C-alpha cells in the first residue's frame, strides 16, 4: 500500500467519523446562539472559535460534514446507478443506434456544468440540498457512462466473454455477470474522485445560496456568512475552507492510491 493511500484513507476517515459522531455528540449544540461569546478566535473552550451568533464552529463543522458527505455521496450514487448501466448497454451494442444515442446524450449533458443545472433547477423549484444533489448527480451520469463504456469495450474483445457467448448467455447477462465485476474497480476509483468533486461542487452551490438552506449547516454557507467578517474574524473563513480542503485532498489521495493498489499493471509499471 502506498503512502498516498494510507494518508488519503486516514484523512477521509477522520472526516467521515466526525460526521457520524455528530449524530450522537458534538461539543456544543451547533444551532445554540450564545451572543456574549460571539466571534471568539479558536481557544480551549471553542476549539475552532465561535461565529457571529456565538455558535460553536467545531460543532458546526462536524454537522456540516454530514451535509457535504450526504449530498456528494447521493450524487455519486445517482451518477453510478444510472451511468454504469448506460455505459454497459452502449458497450454491449457498440456502434448501434443505442450506443450512438447514449454517447450523444452524454455529450449533451457535458455541455451543462453542474452549476448551470443547479441554476436551472433552482430557478424552477427553488434552492435546497435535494436540488443540489440532483444537479451534481446529473452531471455525474455521463462521467460514469463514459468510463464504463470505455472499459467494457475492451473486455468484450476478450476470450472469456466469447466463452460466455458460446455458452449461450445474452448480452444483458454477460454485462451483469462478467463485464460489471471487471469494471467495478474502475467505478470505485472514479467514484472516489467524483465524491471529492461533489464535495467541492456542493460547497460552491451552498456558497452562492443554491444548496442546503438554513438551518441546515453547510461548509459553503458558513463561508458565505463569513465573507463580510473576514477582515476582523478570519477564522470564520479559514476553518470551513480548511475542512473542505482536508476532505477533498483526502478523497483525491484515496482515489489515486486505490487506483494504483487495485490495478496491478500500474503497480508494476511504477516499480
Amino acid at each position: 500500500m502506498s503512502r498516498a493511500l494510507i494518508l488519503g484513507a486516514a484523512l477521509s476517515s477522520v472526516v467521515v467519523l466526525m460526521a457520524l459522531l455528530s449524530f450522537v455528540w458534538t461539543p456544543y449544540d451547533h444551532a445554540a446562539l450564545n451572543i456574549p461569546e460571539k466571534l471568539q478566535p479558536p481557544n480551549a473552550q471553542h476549539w475552532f472559535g465561535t461565529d457571529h451568533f456565538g455558535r460553536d464552529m467545531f460543532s458546526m463543522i462536524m454537522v456540516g460534514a454530514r451535509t457535504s458527505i450526504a449530498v456528494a455521496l447521493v450524487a455519486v450514487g445517482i451518477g453510478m446507478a444510472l451511468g454504469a448501466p448506460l455505459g454497459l448497454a452502449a458497450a454491449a451494442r457498440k456502434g448501434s443506434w443505442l450506443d450512438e444515442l447514449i454517447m450523444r446524450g452524454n455529450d449533451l449533458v457535458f455541455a451543462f456544468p453542474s452549476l448551470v443545472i443547479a441554476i436551472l433547477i433552482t430557478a424552477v423549484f427553488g434552492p435546497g440540498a435535494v436540488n443540489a444533489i440532483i444537479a451534481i448527480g446529473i452531471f455525474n451520469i455521463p462521467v460514469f457512462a463514459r468510463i464504463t463504456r470505455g472499459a467494457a469495450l475492451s473486455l468484450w474483445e476478450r476470450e472469456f466473454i466469447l466463452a460466455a457467448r458460446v455458452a449461450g448467455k445474452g448480452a444483458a447477462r454477460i454485462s451483469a455477470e462478467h463485464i460489471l465485476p471487471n469494471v467495478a474497480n474502475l467505478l470505485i476509483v472514479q467514484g472516489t474522485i467524483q465524491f471529492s468533486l461533489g464535495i467541492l461542487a456542493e460547497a460552491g452551490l451552498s456558497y452562492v445560496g443554491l444548496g442546503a438552506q438554513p438551518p441546515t449547516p453547510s461548509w459553503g454557507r458558513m463561508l458565505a456568512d463569513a465573507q463580510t467578517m473576514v477582515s476582523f474574524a478570519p477564522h470564520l473563513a479559514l476553518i470551513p475552507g480548511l475542512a473542505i480542503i482536508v476532505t477533498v485532498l483526502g478523497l483525491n489521495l484515496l482515489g489515486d492510491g486505490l487506483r494504483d493498489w487495485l490495478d496491478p499493471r500500474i503497480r508494476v509499471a511504477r516499480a
Partner: protein
Amino acid sequence: MLRYALKRLISLALSLAVASVVIFAVIEVAPGDPASFMLGVNAQPETLAALRAELGLDVSRPQRYLNWVSGMLAGDFGTSYTYRTPVAQMVADRLWVSLPLALYALTLSTLIAFPVGIYAAARRGKPGDLAVMGATQLGIAVPNFWFAMMLVLIFAINLRWFNAGGFAGWDNGLWAGLHSLTLPAIALALPQAAILARVMRSALLDILGEDFMRTARAKGLSRRQALWRHGVRNALIPVLTIIGLQFSFLLAGSIIIEQVFYLPGLGRLVFQAISARDLIVVESVVMLLVFAVITVNFLVDLAYAAVDPRLRSRT
C-alpha cells in the same frame, strides 16, 4: 478536413437544438405566470391579457419555443420581466465582465501550468517533481471561491494592493479594468493551473517514452532540445483538450467568483433573476453558457484535427 469540419458543424447545430429544447422545457414547467407575477394579484384581466400578448405568452408552447429560438438567432432574447429592458442588452453588458475574466484566468492558468508541468516532467521523481506534484494535489483540493476570500484578506485588506471588490469598468482604461479583475482571475486560475500542470506533466512523460524521442537523442539533440522540439509539441494535444474543457469551467466558475468580489457579471445577473423569478433572463443566460461550452468544444475539436490529421478519421 472540410468534410470533418462539416460533420462536426452539423453535430454542433444538433446539440444546440436539443439543449435549447431541454432548457425551454425546464423553464416551462416552472409554476406561475410571469405576467401575473409582474402585475401582482390584483391585476385586471384585460391588463393581464394585454401584458401576456406583449410578452408573447398568449400563443401555444411550440409557437413560443419557435419565437424564442428565432428571436435568439436574430439577437433578440426577449424582454426582462422585472427590468422591462431587452435581455440581450443586459446580458451583453454583463458579458463584458465575465468573458474577459474567464479569458484572463485561462491565460494565467496556461502561463503557470506550462512551465510548471514541463519542469516537473523533466525532473521526474526528483525533489522538484515531488514538490510540484504535492503542490498541485493541494491546488486541486482548494475551492476557488475560498481561495478568492483568502486573496482578498491578504492582498486587499492587509496589503491594500487591490480593491476588495467591485469593478472599475472598461471606460477608465484597460489597466483599471484588468486591475480589478486580477484577484478574481488568480483565484479562478490557480486551481485550474494545478490540474493543467498535472496533465502537461503526464502527457510529456508519455511522450518521453516514445521511440522518436530516443531517435531525437540519438541524432545528437540534448535532452532539453529533444524535450522542447519534439516533446512539448506532441504533448499539446491532450493539453489542448483540457484547456477547452477548462474554459467552460472558468466561465461557470466566474459566476461563483463574481459573488466574492461583487463583480457585475453574468453571475450577479442570474442570481438576481432567480430571486426575482425573472425566468426569461435565467433561460437566456443558461442558453448562452451552454452555447459557449458547446462552441468551445467544437473549436477545440477543429483545432486538433488541424494539428493532428490522424484524429480526423475518428468519431
